[in-house]
């Protein structure tokens, strides 16, 4: 018996259906693979390996037959192509890594596999996660299912498309400067970037190591919580920046009223800070509207809105676009055409081989960031740019701590606009950088943040509400988002035709 509605199910529903044997992991994987292939024009997936997928699904079914149960057992999902995988090629969206096969699985991939998830394939992204539109992928654009002429956001663009178009119930993403939150916002998906250091970076193709952080994207905060509970946790021997904090059950506060609150006003006592700088003239009216309405809904649930200031919000743009490229220029020096990755066919000598291999292998945005990074780290400019940016980074982190004396969570838009048209900003790098303004500050501070579907703008395009918590406050963020999703149905909306 085959079920045609499996793609309509979220993680929890699907896990339950697989557990009670009304479907199987194999059937769910086959159904979603067929669906992903049928929607190949969206550009969400970069690689499949049906044999490996079905082997994982059969193994999950065997575990279920043996009586094992688990919140993710048998659940199909897909990984951003930034995570290295043994069973699938890993490209990081770059021509540099075309055909690359990793000898190992990233820690996040391995943990999810142990929990019994089934990998459907690898998902499109901006090259080396550098970009906010998925237009920087060497393997073609990913298309926003809400309007296929528009970008899905990025860099986890394929991840957001896969969830929004029901090509996977949940996916992994990574967020360096907003790469989970912004595409989640553009595609009506729920996504969370945990505190920096919560998820191991081992096996994540490195972009900017002091900022890169993995997180889940799914259709609800509850599903994200289930995934994050498996993805997070110390990986002390393999990631020197992995935080030595025990793994948590991030679902533990879901559906619980806050301490002292009653069920009908579950957020009673929660102070939500609204940074003035997140609600200025730079925010499109059709983003302001849904965000304000979502905040009013949170008030109805008992929260109090507090006016706060993050005075250095605008500075986050130059600070981030100095620090991230500086780290990238160092990380990407490993692509030399020797140990792995692209090597030019013709060259005169070693230096020429490096230069030709790198110029052929890296796309324009990656080359731009390598140039910026190399420059700001070079002799005579280091103090004026890199060091200065790191000093302001500390001030930005302090601004948040100041704000958190007045509130428990911070809220605002995830992005100043809805998704733009493919090609609209592709010739203007600075315009792309400016669009990251609301996600960069939390990234620089290493704070957890999420984007929650909050409604739709003028043209029917999704708008995300960003929630930012203090360090280690993921469970409280997810509790708030879940309470919002119990009271609203924005997160359940799917684009027409999907």
């Amino acid at each position: 018996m085959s079920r045609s509605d499996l793609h309509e199910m979220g993680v929890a529903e699907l896990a339950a259906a697989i557990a009670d044997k009304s479907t199987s992991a194999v059937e769910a994987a086959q159904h979603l693979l067929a669906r992903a292939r049928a929607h190949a024009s969206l550009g969400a997936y970069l690689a499949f390996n049906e044999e490996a997928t079905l082997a994982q699904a059969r193994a999950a079914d065997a575990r279920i037959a043996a009586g094992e149960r688990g919140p993710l057992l048998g659940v199909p999902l897909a990984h951003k192509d930034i995570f290295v995988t043994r069973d699938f090629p890993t490209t990081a969206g770059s021509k540099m890594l075309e055909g690359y096969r990793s000898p190992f699985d990233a820690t996040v991939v391995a943990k999810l596999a142990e929990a019994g998830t089934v990998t459907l394939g690898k998902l499109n992204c901006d090259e080396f996660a550098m970009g906010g539109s998925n237009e920087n992928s060497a393997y073609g654009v990913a298309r926003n299912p809400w309007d296929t002429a528009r970008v899905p956001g990025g860099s986890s663009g394929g991840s957001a498309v896969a969830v929004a178009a029901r090509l996977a119930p949940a996916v992994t993403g990574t967020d360096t400067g907003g790469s989970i939150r912004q595409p989640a916002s553009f595609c009506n998906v729920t996504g969370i970037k945990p505190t920096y250091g919560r998820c191991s970076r081992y096996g994540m193709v490195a972009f900017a190591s002091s900022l890169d952080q993995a997180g889940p994207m799914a259709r609800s905060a509850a599903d994200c919580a289930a995934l994050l509970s498996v993805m997070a946790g110390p990986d002390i021997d393999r990631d020197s920046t992995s935080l030595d904090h025990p793994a948590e059950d991030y679902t533990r506060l879901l559906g619980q009223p806050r301490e002292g609150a009653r069920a009908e006003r579950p957020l009673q006592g929660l102070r939500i800070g609204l940074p003035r700088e997140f609600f200025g003239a730079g925010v499109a009216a059709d983003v302001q509207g849904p965000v304000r309405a979502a905040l009013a809904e949170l008030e109805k649930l008992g929260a109090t809105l507090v006016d706060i200031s993050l005075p250095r919000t605008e500075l986050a743009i130059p600070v981030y676009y100095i620090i991230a490229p500086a780290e990238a220029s160092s990380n990407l020096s490993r692509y030399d055409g020797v140990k792995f990755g692209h090597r030019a066919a013709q060259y005169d000598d070693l230096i020429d081989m490096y230069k030709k291999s790198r110029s052929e292998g890296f796309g324009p945005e990656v080359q731009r960031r390598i140039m910026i990074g190399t420059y700001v780290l070079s002799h005579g400019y280091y103090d004026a740019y890199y060091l200065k940016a790191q000093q302001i980074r500390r001030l930005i982190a302090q601004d948040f701590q100041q704000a958190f004396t007045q509130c428990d969570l911070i809220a605002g838009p995830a992005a100043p606009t809805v998704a733009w048209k493919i090609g609209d900003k592709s010739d203007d790098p600075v315009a792309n950088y400016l669009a990251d303004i609301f996600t960069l500050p939390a990234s620089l501070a290493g704070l957890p943040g999420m984007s929650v579907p909050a409604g739709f703008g003028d043209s029917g395009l999704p708008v995300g509400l960003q929630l930012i918590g203090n360090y280690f406050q993921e469970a409280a963020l997810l509790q708030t988002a879940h309470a919002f999703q119990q009271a609203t149905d924005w997160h359940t909306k799917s684009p027409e035709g999907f």
Partner: protein
Amino acid sequence: MSLRSSDIDRIAHLARLQMPPAQAERMRTQLNDFFDIVEQMKAVDTTGVEPLAHPTAVIDHVALRLRPDVASEPNQREANQQSAPAVEHGLFLVPRVIE
């Protein structure tokens, strides 16, 4: 501050990137556009502010860890070299460096 084409050539060389003149000129314009928005950093008083290289320093108030310098992985030379462009007898091949 404005980058000149000689700056672009120098940075590209340091970054081991090959940049034909037309591309270098485009890069110069785009980098100068970017450094226009960097200017606002100058106005920030950062006297006495300790640079923040890494968020773990403020999250956990811990220094970055070091692990003992001992081999912890088995030898996986073949697996690690499977994606190398040129390998012979387990060695990575590069163009002649010393004549």
